[in-house]
């Protein structure tokens, strides 16, 4: 009876947004290789526009993310850009934040309670990887033995996996998924691929949830004595991390990384929030994932972001 | 050319345990260091061993000052110490233990062959009949005590030997063997410091005596000029009472053990009557501990029956047996009975908390009351409910353990005591005897096991001699003398007393 909803510290409607030019960027996957670059671009744009960025240390831990976001909400940061590890868990916080006159921008996944979102669809990313892999397999004459390395513990991992399943193997009749395993890190990628290679010495395709895992898988092939440019092998990753793209650029067995433009996303982190704070309309961005192969002319542009 | 200690002082958290102790021992002298529990004997010995550093005072050996002593340094100086609490490592073999800290080496490796050879000789010297590879943890406590002694003996250039209550868990024959070794070392000119609560031993081997009380020397004299009464008075502070008399008369049988067998004993049949003190005498390893512990529910018997107050008791756990009115004071206080870091109140009242509680909640008032009553009855020193169990002297620790069951006397029919006065001083020993008598007066049957024939003779109304896990003789009343006990016990062991 006496239990009331927590609407944040201020009464709705009566709050006043702080005038500080501060944006909180909550990115939980700090151990990912792309994080550094993402931060760099966001910082670059923030500097240009005179904003200060703040960060969290969520440790990939849902509860910690929740606690940290709650801290920011209470703190009434003018704007928050958050990458929810679990979208549903962010809704109440986003609602509170907005009731507190905080601009709330969701990252990677749309929320009901948001002012705008920065999207790069995990589902589309997975689909693009599946399609690229399917196309390669279709052109490939021999049988294709596939290892899928997914990571459904993360919402984005689950979306990518769903996307992949939607398009792969598709029409590639010669493709056979011989193993599906969970892998979250580069070491996982190497270790599991090595073992599956033992079971299936003719394994020639690995589709990984991100570039880190795919690089581990590539290493396992190299460690097994396969040529770095073996025409029969296909390794695909997602993210478009610097290392992933560099691997693609070498034109070897690392054939595709489904990339979102890290630079665009990094800029958007600052721009979307800043625009909204400054009263400029901004519905957010939706950065499309692109399957980058060695012969894709965009590869150079994407890579140049990192130099 | 002596070992000299001058003005040794040591405090534990502000409490002065040693207050300027002087002690000197000449080569070839056996010096008995005596005193009640908590007098500071072991503390003084730890100073000689380098285990602790005194705050003041000096130690000189052969006229050279000894400073910053550590156990290793002490060893190098030729000081061999046998500590009161065993310093053996249970999981290692006999040989490993004998050489612990001072292995015989071949390069960086242990020279096992040489170690085995020397170990064999040592064991034979002390008549310890155990395999060299046996894990020490599986050996009876008496054998461990002998090993502890042998461990200090494995070198030839010992200048000082310190024995802190070495005979507390030794039987007569082992004690004799130890004394023979001590005499040999004495011949070789070692300085020997010897601590014991068995005053008879003082007159057997010691040349001089130092008595400590409250960390100060109260008596220092050659044994030759000493009479036992003066010694006892010096130790107990003069307020010694006469031994209590047997008062209670035996009533009906409360404990009836029929053909009971268990680990390392049996079958055994015995009866204990209300108001009676039954003593179990035997040599080390004769199985008394196993028998008592089985009766107390620690082990499941493999055969036989136990009847208490006419009802059969399923011996399945201590809790179960206690509900039937049987409780045990075990022999290994540190390991089996004491919660060293918990308060005296917890130590004394643990089995009573449930009964004192109202519903699920404790009643502090009642607990305090019971603690005070029991502590007074036992003459616990100090009677401080909050003091940690481990901070009491050995004798008072034993009072805490005994008091645990005294506090539940209303529910008690049989009290089993295993080596009830091990490491306990004259005063506390008397108190424990008194409590046993008192218990019998209140209708409890007391069954105790002891390695000390004196004790059995002094306390028991009836005595059973145990050998190899069986009852081999029964003595009653005036038949129970030290001599008759020894005769019976050793008749089957082939060792001439």
């Amino acid at each position: 009876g006496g239990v009331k909803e927590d609407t944040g510290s201020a009464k709705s409607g009566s709050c006043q947004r702080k005038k500080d030019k501060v944006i909180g960027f909550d990115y939980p996957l700090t151990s990912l290789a792309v994080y550094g670059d993402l931060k760099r671009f966001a910082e670059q744009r923030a500097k240009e526009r005179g904003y200060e960025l703040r960060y969290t240390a969520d440790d990939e831990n849902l509860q910690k993310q929740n606690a940290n976001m709650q801290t920011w909400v209470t703190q009434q940061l003018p704007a928050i850009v958050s990458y929810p590890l679990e979208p549903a868990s962010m809704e109440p916080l986003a609602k509170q934040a907005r009731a507190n006159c905080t601009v709330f921008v969701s990252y990677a996944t749309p929320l009901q309670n948001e002012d705008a979102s920065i999207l790069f669809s995990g589902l589309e990313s997975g689909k693009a990887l599946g399609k690229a892999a399917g196309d390669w397999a279709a052109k490939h004459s021999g049988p294709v033995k596939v290892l899928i390395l997914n990571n459904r513990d993360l919402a984005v991992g689950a979306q990518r996996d769903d996307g992949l399943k939607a398009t792969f193997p598709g029409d590639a009749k010669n493709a056979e998924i011989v193993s599906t395993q969970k892998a979250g890190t580069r070491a996982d990628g190497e270790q599991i691929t090595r073992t599956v290679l033992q079971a299936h010495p003719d394994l020639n395709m690995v589709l990984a949830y991100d570039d880190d895992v795919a690089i581990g898988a590539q290493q396992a092939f190299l460690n097994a004595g396969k040529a770095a440019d073996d025409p029969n092998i296909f390794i695909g990753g997602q993210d478009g991390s610097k290392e992933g793209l560099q691997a693609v650029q070498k034109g070897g067995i690392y054939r595709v990384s489904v990339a979102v433009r890290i630079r665009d996303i990094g800029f958007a982190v600052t721009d979307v929030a800043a625009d909204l704070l400054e009263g400029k309309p901004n519905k957010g961005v939706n950065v499309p994932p692109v399957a980058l192969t060695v012969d894709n002319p965009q590869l150079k542009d994407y890579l140049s972001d990192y130099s | 050319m002596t070992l000299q200690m001058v003005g040794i002082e040591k405090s534990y958290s502000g409490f002065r345990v040693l207050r300027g102790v002087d002690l000197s021992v000449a080569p070839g002298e056996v010096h008995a260091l005596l005193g009640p529990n908590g007098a500071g004997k072991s503390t003084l010995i730890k100073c000689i061993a380098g285990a602790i550093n005194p705050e003041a005072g000096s130690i000189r050996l052969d006229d050279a000052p000894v400073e910053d002593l550590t156990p290793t340094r002490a060893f190098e100086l030729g000081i061999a110490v046998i500590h009161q609490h065993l310093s053996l490592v249970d999981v290692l073999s006999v040989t490993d233990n004998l050489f612990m800290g001072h292995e015989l080496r071949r390069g960086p490796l242990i020279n096992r062959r040489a170690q085995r050879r020397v170990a064999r000789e040592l064991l034979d010297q002390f008549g310890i009949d155990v395999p060299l590879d046996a894990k020490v943890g599986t050996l009876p406590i008496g054998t461990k005590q002998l090993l502890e002694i042998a461990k200090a003996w494995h070198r030839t250039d010992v200048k000082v030997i310190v024995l802190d209550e070495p005979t507390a868990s030794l039987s007569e024959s082992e004690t004799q063997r130890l004394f023979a070794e001590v005499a040999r070392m004495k011949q070789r000119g070692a300085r020997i410091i010897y601590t014991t609560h068995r005053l008879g031993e003082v007159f057997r081997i010691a040349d001089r005596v130092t008595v400590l009380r409250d960390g100060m020397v109260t008596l220092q004299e050659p044994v030759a000029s000493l009479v036992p009464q003066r010694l006892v008075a010096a130790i107990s502070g003069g307020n010694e009472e006469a031994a209590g008399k047997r008062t209670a008369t035996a009533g009906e049988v409360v404990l009836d053990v029929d053909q009971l067998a268990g680990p390392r004993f049996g079958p055994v049949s015995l009866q204990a009557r209300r108001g009676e003190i039954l003593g179990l005498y035997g040599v080390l390893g004769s199985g008394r501990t196993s028998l008592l512990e089985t009766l107390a529910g620690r082990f499941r018997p493999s055969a036989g029956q136990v009847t208490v107050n006419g009802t059969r008791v399923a011996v399945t756990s201590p809790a179960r047996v206690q509900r039937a009115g049987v409780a045990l004071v075990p022999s290994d206080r540190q390991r089996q009975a004491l919660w060293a870091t918990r308060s005296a109140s917890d130590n004394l009242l643990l089995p009573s908390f449930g009964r004192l509680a109202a519903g699920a909640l404790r009643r502090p008032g009642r607990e305090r009351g019971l603690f005070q009553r029991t502590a007074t009855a036992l003459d616990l020193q100090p009677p401080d409910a909050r003091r940690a169990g481990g901070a009491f002297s050995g004798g008072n620790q034993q009072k805490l353990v005994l008091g645990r069951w005294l506090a539940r006397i209303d529910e008690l029919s049989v009290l089993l005591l295993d080596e009830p006065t091990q490491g306990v001083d004259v005063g506390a020993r008397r108190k424990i005897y008194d409590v046993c008598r008192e218990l019998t007066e209140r209708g409890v049957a007391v069954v105790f096991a002891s390695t000390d024939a004196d004790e059995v003779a002094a306390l028991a109304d009836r005595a059973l001699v145990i050998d190899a896990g069986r009852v081999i003789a029964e003595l009653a009343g005036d038949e129970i003398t030290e001599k008759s006990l020894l005769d019976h016990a050793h008749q089957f062991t082939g060792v001439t007393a």
Partner: protein
Amino acid sequence: MTTTTSTTTSAASASAPAVGAKRDPIAVALRSALLIGLVVLTIFFTAQSNLFLTAGNLKNIALSGAVLMVVAVPQALLVIMGVVDLSVGSVIGLAGVVTGLLIVDHGMAWQLAALIGIAIGAVAGLVNGLLVAFTRLSPIIVTLGTLQLYRGITQFLRSNPPANFGKGMQLLGRGLYLGVPVPVWIALVVFIIGAIVLYGTPSGRYVYAIGVNKEAAFLSGVATRALPLIVYAATGAAAGIGGVLLSAQLDSAPPGTLGVGFELNVLTAVLLGGIAFSGGRGTMFGVLLGVAFLGVLNNGMTLMNVPYYAQEMATGAALIIGAGLDELSQHSQLIRAIGRRR
């Protein structure tokens, strides 16, 4: 672990007053250097950010520590008894996911679903207890095993997170009662129960007795198997409550991540609070301090915008310093003298 029984330690512990005697809360506070450390930390953060010491932020700290507290209280009892439950993180996950899928997939009323979740937690704890009490297996390896087993079961039950549990669960997770979040009230109740059990009942004495000397406890008639069993079940139930609260707070229950790593947080809080891993020593007040210390540290660093790697470094250093402060208060003559003076 036997490590703490060094020569000097056993010497000192013998003369220290028994733990049970330390119940007077103010005396405890004065004797606790960790409390002083916590105060210093608080002053520091308050100086750094004027938001730190606001009602809203304190509420946040309390809310983020609530589940930790709920699980840490029975865990503390286990650790004092000389055992441990490392599977709590997985039990949290299991209970949360079961509750969530009952609500979402089966349309069950949230109250009933939550009760079932908690019951499943209790059963999971009971299994741990049975394995530990009736075998000679190390509690660590047993609960490392069930840590994986329960997580596997959780992920088998549901691969995608159930979400959107409705109003009731939302109020349970973040609703306010008298201005204080509901989970904080629950944590308070659990803490009080824990304190009463430890100090007010005979079982509390048995907990210490088992931890200090199990053999002596057994010979004195303490139920040295049943009591750990019950506390394991209670820990499981508490983890179940934690799982329900967490998923209510998150309004979703991700099978792969809910509660992952929580066992380390709990252990950290408990050990930081001065409960010896070797058993036999510790207070409920210490648990409170440990939980508060971690909560304040985390919150303050986020407010100060400390980078993630520096947060890790600081947390690590703070853990060691915090434990050092606690140790100091157990042994320092100085602090004891202060304690005595009042």
